[in-house]
C-alpha cells in the first residue's frame, strides 16, 4: 500500500488523464461539498432555535396558579387559586434533590422616579435564584443575594431601558430610585438577550415587595430549574410529580389544567430537537444519495479506464503481474481519487463556512458549522466509497485474460 512504485504508477496514470481525473474527482468533491453544506445548514438552524430558547435556562419549570375549571373535593369550580410564601417553601422542601434553583415571583407595576424623570414599569419580586432561572446578565453592579432577601432590603436591579429612561448617561448604581414613593437603592443593571421588553423590568427581592408594596405573603408564580443532568423522561416525570402534589395541596382536580399549570420548557425543547434531528437525518440522506451518484460516477469511469487499459493490463500480466497486484493498483487509484477530491470538497465547504458562517446571525439560523466528528465520518465514508467504486472494476481488471488483451485484432 505504501509502495512508492504503486503511487508513482497512480500519479502517472492520473497525470496522463488530467481531464478524466478532474471530472471524476469533481463529482465526489461536489457530493461531499453538498453533504457538508447541508449538515452545516441544519446545524445552523439548530443553533438558531437553541439560541432562541436558550434565553431562559432550558431546564426551567414554571408553576402557575389559575382558576379551577372543575368542581372538586367539595369545592365549586371557578375558584381562584392563590399561591403563598408557604407554597414556595413547600416546593423547595419537598424536592431538594430535583431542584437546582427556585424562586417565587410577585408581579406588580410601579411608577419609578429619579430626580425629574419618571416612568411606569413592571416590577417583579423574586428570589436571588431567579438570576440563573431567567439567565439575567448583570452588566454593572450585582444581583441581590439571599441576605438582601432575608433582610427585605430595599434594593433594585433595573433593566437597560429603565436606566436609559431615568438616568440617561448617569451611573445609576448606588443611586436611589423612587418606586411607588419609596426609595430603593439601585445595585445593578441587567440586559436580557430575549427582548427589549424584558429590559424594561425592575427586579427587587420578593420579600421587600411583599412588605412595602402590598403587605402580603401572596406570590404569583413559582419558577425553578431542575437538576440539569435529567434527561427528558426524568424531567417530565418531575413535572408530573410537582403537578400532583401542588394540585393535591390546593385541592384541584388532577384533570384540571386551568387550576394549576406546570409548564416545562423541556417539552417545547424536545419538539425542536426532534424537528432538527429529522432535518439532519433528511439532509444526511440527501447528501448520501448525491454521494452515491458520485461513487457510481467513479465506478463508471474506472470501468471505462479498465477497458481502455485492457491491453496494458494484459501486458502487465504477461510480464508477471499477479491478479492481486492489478486489483491493488485499480483500488488504490480509485481510493486516491475519491479521498483526494472528497477532501478538496470538504476543505472548500469548511473554508466557506468559516468565512461566512460567523457572519450569519438571524433568529432562525446562526453560525452554521460542521463538527470534527462529521469531518472524520466523511473521511471514512470517502475511503469506503473509493473502495466500493473501485472494487468491481478492479475485479474486472484482474480477470482480464492476457491472451485476449494481447491479440492484435
Amino acid at each position, binding site marked *: 500500500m505504501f509502495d512508492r512504485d504503486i503511487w508513482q504508477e497512480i500519479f502517472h*496514470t492520473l497525470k496522463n488523464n488530467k481531464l478524466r481525473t478532474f471530472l471524476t474527482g469533481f463529482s465526489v468533491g461536489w457530493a461531499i461539498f453538498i453533504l457538508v453544506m447541508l449538515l452545516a445548514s441544519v446545524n445552523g438552524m439548530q443553533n438558531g432555535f437553541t439560541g432562541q430558547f436558550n434565553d431562559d435556562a432550558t431546564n426551567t419549570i414554571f408553576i402557575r396558579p389559575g382558576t379551577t375549571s372543575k368542581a372538586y373535593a367539595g369545592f365549586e369550580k371557578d375558584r381562584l387559586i392563590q399561591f403563598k410564601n408557604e407554597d414556595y417553601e413547600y416546593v423547595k422542601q419537598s424536592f431538594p434533590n430535583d431542584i437546582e434553583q427556585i424562586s417565587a415571583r410577585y408581579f406588580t407595576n410601579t411608577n419609578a422616579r429619579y430626580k425629574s424623570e419618571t416612568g411606569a414599569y413592571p416590577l417583579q419580586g423574586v428570589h436571588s435564584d431567579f438570576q440563573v432561572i431567567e439567565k439575567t446578565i448583570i452588566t454593572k453592579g450585582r444581583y441581590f443575594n439571599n441576605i438582601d432577601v432575608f433582610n427585605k432590603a430595599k434594593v433594585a436591579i433595573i433593566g437597560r431601558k429603565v436606566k436609559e429612561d431615568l438616568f440617561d448617561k448617569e451611573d445609576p448604581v448606588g443611586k436611589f430610585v423612587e418606586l411607588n414613593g419609596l426609595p430603593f437603592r439601585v445595585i445593578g443593571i441587567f440586559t436580557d438577550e430575549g427582548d427589549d421588553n424584558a429590559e424594561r423590568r425592575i427586579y427587587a427581592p420578593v420579600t421587600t415587595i411583599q412588605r412595602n408594596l402590598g403587605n402580603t405573603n401572596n406570590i404569583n408564580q413559582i419558577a425553578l430549574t431542575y437538576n440539569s443532568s435529567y434527561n427528558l423522561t426524568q424531567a417530565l416525570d418531575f413535572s408530573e410529580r410537582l403537578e400532583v402534589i401542588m394540585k393535591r395541596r390546593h385541592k384541584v382536580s388532577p384533570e384540571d389544567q386551568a387550576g394549576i399549570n406546570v409548564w416545562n420548557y423541556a417539552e417545547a425543547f424536545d419538539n425542536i430537537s426532534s424537528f432538527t434531528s429529522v432535518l439532519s437525518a433528511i439532509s444526511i440522506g440527501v447528501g448520501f444519495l448525491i454521494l452515491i451518484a458520485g461513487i457510481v460516477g467513479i465506478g463508471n469511469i474506472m470501468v471505462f479506464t479498465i477497458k481502455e487499459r485492457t491491453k496494458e493490463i494484459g501486458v502487465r500480466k*504477461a*510480464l*508477471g503481474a499477479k491478479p492481486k497486484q492489478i486489483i491493488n493498483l485499480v483500488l488504490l487509484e480509485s481510493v486516491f481519487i475519491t479521498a483526494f477530491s472528497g477532501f478538496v470538497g470538504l476543505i472548500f465547504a469548511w473554508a466557506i463556512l468559516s468565512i461566512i458562517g460567523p457572519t450569519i446571525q438571524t433568529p432562525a439560523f446562526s453560525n452554521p458549522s460542521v463538527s470534527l466528528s462529521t469531518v472524520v465520518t466523511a473521511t471514512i465514508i470517502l475511503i469506503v466509497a473509493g473502495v466500493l467504486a473501485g472494487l468491481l472494476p478492479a475485479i474486472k481488471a484482474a480477470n482480464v*485474460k492476457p*491472451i485476449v488483451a*494481447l491479440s492484435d485484432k
Partner: protein
Amino acid sequence: MIEIKDLHKSYKMGSNSLHVLKGINFTAKEGELVAIMGSSGSGKSTLLNILGMLDSADSGEYNLDSVPIKDLNETKAAQYRNKFLGFIFQSFNLINYKSAAENVALPLYYQKVGRKERQEKAMKYLEQVGLKEWATHLPSELSGGQKQRVAIARAMAAEPKVLLADEPTGALDSKTSYEVMDLIQKINDAGNTILVVTHEEDIAHMCKRIVHLKDGVIVEDKKVEQVRAQQYV
C-alpha cells in the same frame, strides 16, 4: 528446456468446437533458436500462447525447465511467466506512458527487485540493445525498430529461461526486421533459448531450426543453416 507431449487444444465456437492443436510433440533444448512457421489458422499462435502460459491446453504434457506446467491458477501462472518467460510481441506492447527504462524495469518490479537494482539492470539491457541514450524517452518518441528493441530488452530483463517472440518483425519494414533479427541472433549466441513465430521465410531461415505447423499438427521439423542477419544490416 521445453518438452511437449501430445498437446491438444480446441475452442468452442457456439455449438461447434474447433480442434486447433491435434497432438503436438515438440522439444527444444537450451540454446536453441526455433522458428515456428505456418499459415494463419495453423495453430502456431495457439501453441505459442500455451507455451507462454497465456492459455492452457485441454490435454497433453508440458514441461518447462523440468517443471510440469498444469493446473495453474492465475497467481501461479503469473509467477511462472515472470520467472521462466520473456515475451516479444508483434505490436511491441510497451506501456505508452512509461519511459523506455521504466518499461524494461517493469518485469523486475513484479519480481520484487529493489528500485535501484531495477534501474541498473534496465540500463544494462537497454545498452545491450543499443538504446542506452534513449532510456528516458517515451515509446511514442521511438521508431518501430527501437520500440521492438526496447521490448526485447524488457523481455530479457527478467532473465527468463525462454524468450517467446510472436511475429517480432511483423510490424516492421525489412531493414528494421533484419536489425531486430540480428539482435535476436546475438542474444541466442549468448546462450538463450528463443522461439520465434513467423510466417516469413527469410526470417525463419535466420533461426537454427524450423518447425512447420499445418492444421494443428507438426508436418515438418528440420534444422537449417542459419542465415546471419548481420550481412543485411
